[in-house]
């Protein structure tokens, strides 16, 4: 049985419609977090402010944060993984990063 982290909650759901959560502190891989009765085990470390999927998300599905769509999933996203430029794209404008591709992978590779 995974044991929930005894630190501060760590993940915040900003709106009831959201399918991503926000890290309220830097989280470590392997931490077990409880959210609305569901236990989530983190497969990777997550910096403060970053988004984590609250459920399995299909390719092309809208990502909701603040109760509004902030873009679409580039690929299948399983619950408890980081949602960033590698798996989420804008419905309006491309996102610019210094290496021209995925800044999140650059930081964490």
């Amino acid at each position, binding site marked *: 049985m995974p044991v929930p982290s005894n630190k*501060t909650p760590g993940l*915040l759901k*900003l709106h009831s419609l959201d399918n991503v959560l*926000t*890290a*309220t*502190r*830097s989280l470590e891989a392997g931490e077990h977090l409880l959210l609305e009765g569901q236990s989530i085990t983190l497969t990777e470390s997550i*910096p*403060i*402010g*970053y*988004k984590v999927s609250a459920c399995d998300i299909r390719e092309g599905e809208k990502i909701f*944060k*603040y109760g*509004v*769509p*902030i*873009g679409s999933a580039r690929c299948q996203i399983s619950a408890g993984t980081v*949602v*960033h*430029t590698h798996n*989420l*794209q*804008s*419905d*309006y*404008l*491309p*996102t*610019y*990063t*210094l290496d021209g591709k995925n*800044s*999140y992978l650059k*930081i964490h590779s």
Partner: protein
Amino acid sequence: MKAFLRPDGKKGIRNVIVVVYLVECAHHVAREIAFPFRDQEVHLIGFTGCYPNHYSHRMLERLCTHPNVAGALLISLGCEGFNRSQLATTIRATGRPVHTLVIQSTGGTRKTIAEGTKWIQETIQAATATPQVEMEMHELIVGTICGGSDATSGITANPAMGRAFDLLVEKNGTAIFEETGELIGCEQIMAARAVTPELGQELIRSVEKAARHYTVLGHGSFAPGNADGGLTTQEEKSMGAYSKSGSSKISGIIKPGDIPPGGGLYLLDVVPDGEVRFGFANINDNAEIAELIACGSHIIIFSTGRGSVVGSAISPVIKVCANPETFRRMPEDMDVDAGRILEGKGSLEEVGQEIYAKIIAVANRERTASELLGHQEFSLTYKSFEPIGPSCLPLNYQTYAMAH
């Protein structure tokens, strides 16, 4: 609040003398004059271009006659396109002391610096006699901006600043939010807050204009540091930025240099009109701050997650830090720790009230972190705008039209 009363009746919360270069070629001379007085409220502003531009001329007119400004020294090389005599006439008409030095006719660098220094010494002395009067909340204009945003900005600092804006608007103060390029994706929910449906349509049009502008230039209002800080898309950044506006009704749309004609919440449309010319709408945060100040802002509240250090010439900048890790890393540059909300050490309401109290304290001469560190950044570029129409100010267009 105690304010400095200007001869034109405006009330300022700082007693600044501006040294203004009218082309880059006069920048060094102007800086040499201003620098020794940097701790005595002498600030350097100017325009680098040699070719005349209606927008930049109007910006400098508004900035040199800003409520926080006591007088202006204009530094011209002599051959640039800027209409220096028209600017001086506008400033003189408000009763403020103004002096123009033309480097080519004064006799070069050294002589101009010497004459300028003498004028500044005399004008500082005269400015100490500026009468001080009581100022009410309905006379205060506050602008808001976010810079160096990360994914905490939209959760802590921005909504807390929105709470402070709600308190200000409740007291009939004037609040200005801006950067329509950072409202892309929020236009429909924003339009629902307009005081009239027609204004709602104007709000949507202003955001559509920004989206077109950024599409032509191939780049939104999104810096690499935003992505490093956990923001993924323009829409996500927009939602965070939008929360700075609070929840009050939106009273109108203004453009750079328009002074809001009454208390309430206004959107400053910073994206130029017409075909895309002169490049990016705002090349950096300070270009936006200068526009908020040109609309009369006495104070700027600035939220940052990554950790911006900037201040501004003319009006003090209050920095609200969204990210608790950033606050611990660079506390001297910050005025308010909003990131503590994430650590359960404060609510949005509490931080909102702290920001509101900070605004009053800074209006009453308390120095901000960036003022204490000597920050006086300034940026002004080429742009072009059409005047706003009556549907942009449904409540008080007549007042606006008479004043402009």
